[in-house]
């Protein structure tokens, strides 16, 4: 096969849409444009049918009932709805939420908002491998705790939490369990029954579907869970999320789920093999470190720090041909390096030196070969240019130097 450039290895940020998804969406723009809530004519019925069908496809992928799927505009909205919606709905039971420091900003900032409203939030530190300590989690539960919010797979390091272990603790204490599974659904088997999840957020554009559509799973039995609507209006989605349904995107999201359902097992095998090959080759570089637990991880993700080179400078060496992302601050608007890597206890220097590789459905072996060469070559070149590398090689203790911080 030919090498296709540029190479997209940022599939944790967003995935390209599968052409089969686009095909499933196309009829619902012009031809079948109806409002799924129009009950009195065929235009509405056709749209409703499409939504019902997609709801089944989505539910099936996570072993839920179709009635338990609330369509939203994406995982950010689902995170907001789950957290704020539970906080409001269960106010009479308590006001305490437990989450962890490596969550997505949509969860952390929703928690900050809840704190402003008088809620109490415990932010658990994660262990050095990115996993939540279940003992710590259980200890954090009080008689005011209403919700545990721990993500399924992490977007930056790919670490998969012990979701079953967490749900057992939640059950034991009669606390609801919400999981942001945006990075996991469609990539690894996610089963809300077996996993014991009460609420779960996920998104179309991380699984080869369209952007701007997602879902919140809300359990209906054992226990029956409800969230207070954060978007009021026509009472769509069982009153939990008003707004005319985005029929084409929902149809596409459903199709994306169906494809993942059928192809996930093979895809995960193929991608983890490629990922492992990439990781092994890059680990041959001295002073490179894989971040996060390697045994409990999404199959397509690896996050590696190349000590003594800075991530943005590193990416510049190949970003004409390879798209990926770095935990370094200089790539983002803020000057802080990745809070997820820092939460693992990485020093700022290692956090600044990290690259995240997110493989996907359309990644090829040739592209991985190219990436290995490009990254290795650039790391080596930049280390020759790095004063820190020179000091390291001369045995100078970099931490003993008094750096002038600014």
């Amino acid at each position: 096969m030919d090498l296709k450039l540029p190479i997209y290895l940022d599939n944790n940020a967003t995935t390209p849409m599968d052409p089969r998804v686009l095909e499933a969406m196309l009829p619902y723009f012009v031809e079948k444009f109806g409002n799924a809530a129009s009950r009195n004519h065929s235009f509405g019925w056709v749209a409703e049918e499409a939504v019902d069908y997609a709801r089944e496809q989505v539910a099936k992928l996570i072993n839920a009932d179709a009635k338990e799927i609330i369509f939203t505009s994406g995982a950010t909205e689902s995170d907001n709805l789950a957290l704020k919606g539970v906080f409001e709905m269960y106010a009479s039971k308590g006001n305490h939420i437990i989450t962890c420091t490596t969550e997505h900003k949509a969860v952390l900032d929703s928690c900050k908002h809840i704190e402003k409203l008088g809620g109490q939030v415990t932010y658990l530190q994660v262990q050095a491998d990115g996993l939540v300590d279940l003992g710590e989690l259980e200890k954090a539960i009080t008689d005011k705790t209403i919700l545990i919010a721990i993500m399924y797979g992490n977007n930056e390091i790919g670490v998969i939490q012990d979701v079953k272990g967490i749900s057992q603790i939640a059950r034991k204490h009669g606390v609801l369990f919400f999981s942001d599974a945006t990075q996991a659904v469609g990539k690894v088997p996610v089963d809300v029954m077996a996993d014991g999840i009460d609420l779960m957020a996920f998104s179309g554009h991380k699984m080869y579907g369209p952007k701007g559509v997602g879902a919140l799973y809300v359990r209906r039995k054992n226990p029956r869970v409800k969230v207070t609507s954060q978007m009021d209006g026509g009472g769509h989605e069982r009153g939990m999320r008003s707004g005319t349904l985005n029929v084409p995107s929902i149809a596409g999201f459903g199709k994306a789920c169906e494809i993942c359902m059928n192809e996930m097992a093979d895809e995960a095998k193929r991608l983890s093999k490629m990922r492992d090959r990439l990781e092994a080759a890059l680990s041959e570089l001295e002073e490179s470190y894989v971040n996060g637990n390697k045994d409990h991880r999404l199959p397509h993700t690896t996050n590696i720090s190349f000590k003594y080179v800075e991530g943005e400078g590193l990416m510049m060496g190949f970003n004409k041909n390879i798209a990926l992302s770095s935990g370094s601050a200089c790539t983002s608007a803020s000057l802080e390096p990745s809070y997820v890597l820092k939460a693992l206890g990485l020093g700022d220097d290692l956090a600044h030196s990290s690259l995240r590789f997110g493989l996907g459905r359309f990644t090829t072996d040739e592209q991985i070969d190219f990436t290995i060469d490009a990254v290795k070559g650039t790391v080596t070149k930049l280390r020759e240019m790095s004063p820190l590398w020179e000091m390291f090689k001369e045995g100078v203790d970099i931490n003993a130097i008094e750096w002038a911080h600014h």
Partner: protein
Amino acid sequence: MAYSEKVIDHYANPKNVGTLDKSKTNVGTGLVGAPECGDVMRLQIEVDQESGIISDAKFKTFGCGSAIASSSLATEWLKGKTVDQALAIDNMDIVEELNLPPVKIHCSVLAEDAIKAAINDYRVKNGLPELTAEKA
């Protein structure tokens, strides 16, 4: 954010990467920035003591492409200047030459700091008073 052509050129073909013997009295070394901030720059000058002219300059930089380009450019500018002329190099000259966007101005500031630090090191080694913050 796209890089300017000049930044890309310095990044791909950096000028004067290397190390001078810091034990020599006519070599001044400036080490600025911090690993925690994602940028460390080391800039060195070698001064011809008869003429007071900077005969050689070298750098090594840990940082983004703009930081690498700023230090590469700085070493080019330093060579052939007297130490006093070198003091006049302003970070905004670097910004202009490399077309750095506002978020990358601090990379050029780092280069100016590194020049001043190297000159100060040279001055102290040769019994001259260290320049104060405003003058330096």
